[in-house]
């Protein structure tokens, strides 16, 4: 395949893509943490279980 084939991103586009990838990664990590904490609260030994 020659270098002319496919879509070439500019440096700015690459930078934005990196930022978007980072944001998606953080969001997924946040979800993992969220599900972990929800599981602890709902199914854990009740140490965190107190009314607001």
């Amino acid at each position, binding site marked *: 395949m020659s270098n002319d084939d496919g879509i070439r991103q500019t440096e700015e586009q690459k930078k*934005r893509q990196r930022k978007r990838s980072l944001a998606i990664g953080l969001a997924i990590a946040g979800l993992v943490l969220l599900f972990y904490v*929800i599981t602890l609260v709902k199914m854990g030994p009740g140490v965190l279980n*107190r009314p*607001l």
Partner: protein
Amino acid sequence: MSLADYQDRRLDAAAHGGQGDVGDYLALLKPRVMSLVIFTALVGLLIAPGGIHPVLGAVAILCIAVGAGASGALNMWYDADIDAIMSRTARRPIPAGKVTPEEALAFGLTLSAFSVLVLGLAVNWLSAGLLAFTIFFYAVVYTMWLKRSTPQNIVIGGAAGAFPPMIGWAAVTGTVTVESIVLFLIIFMWTPPHFWALSLFKRGDYEAARVPMLPVVAGEDATRTQILVYSVLLAPIGVAPALLGFASMAYGAAAAVLGAVFVWYALRVYARREGDAARKAAVRLFAFSLVYLFLVFALLLADSIAARLIAGGWL
């Protein structure tokens, strides 16, 4: 591949997305609207009787916020054509060419699904169902149907913005009660005078975009009358929490004063119909309407906290 072909493919790539910054995606969530949603939902959650685990309460607020943001993204996906025409919305990510409509649609649908599922799994399915209905109501009933077809668009569509405190309440209690319906009604009756005041001084925008807002379809005088009618109806509903016994009489007195000021601003809009004075009256009502809603909910929260402190022997 010729240079022309290459440039075509470059342009094609731009049209097919992948251009947006993280900030553009955050803008799709309508952060300013979201802040009002978070605040009213939080008040609904905190003044509801009973308790919820603080972590689950935070999860509920997060889900409501993300759900509201998702419906904002779906609204921007569908309304990109008219957003491009109106000065207030022309710099939104889709008309500005930063995000494609398809990207906004996918973003909105993904966040909608996640927010509803997480709220249902973590808190309860009634609040999740209400959140799903709110997103549907805003994206489909208001944006796709009412907004472009009737001058009553924001009256009925306003229900979408009125649901968050009811969802917050349902997250704690698992039910819909008279109290949460009153919280709903406060925002529901507040929405028409709020948006019609805006549409009085942004009428040209709506006209250009052919959105049938009341001043465009029925005229400014009819709009002023409607603003006054809804303001007069809103004032007693603002006091209703005290009359129904889930807020103190001190709250009731403060809400009555706020309601009276709201009606006074609406009367000024009604009386001043020409030139700069008319415009200023509409701008002032719009600005006060935001203060009114914030203060009513802040007072409800303060009142509830004070009542709990007194009941607990702290005051």
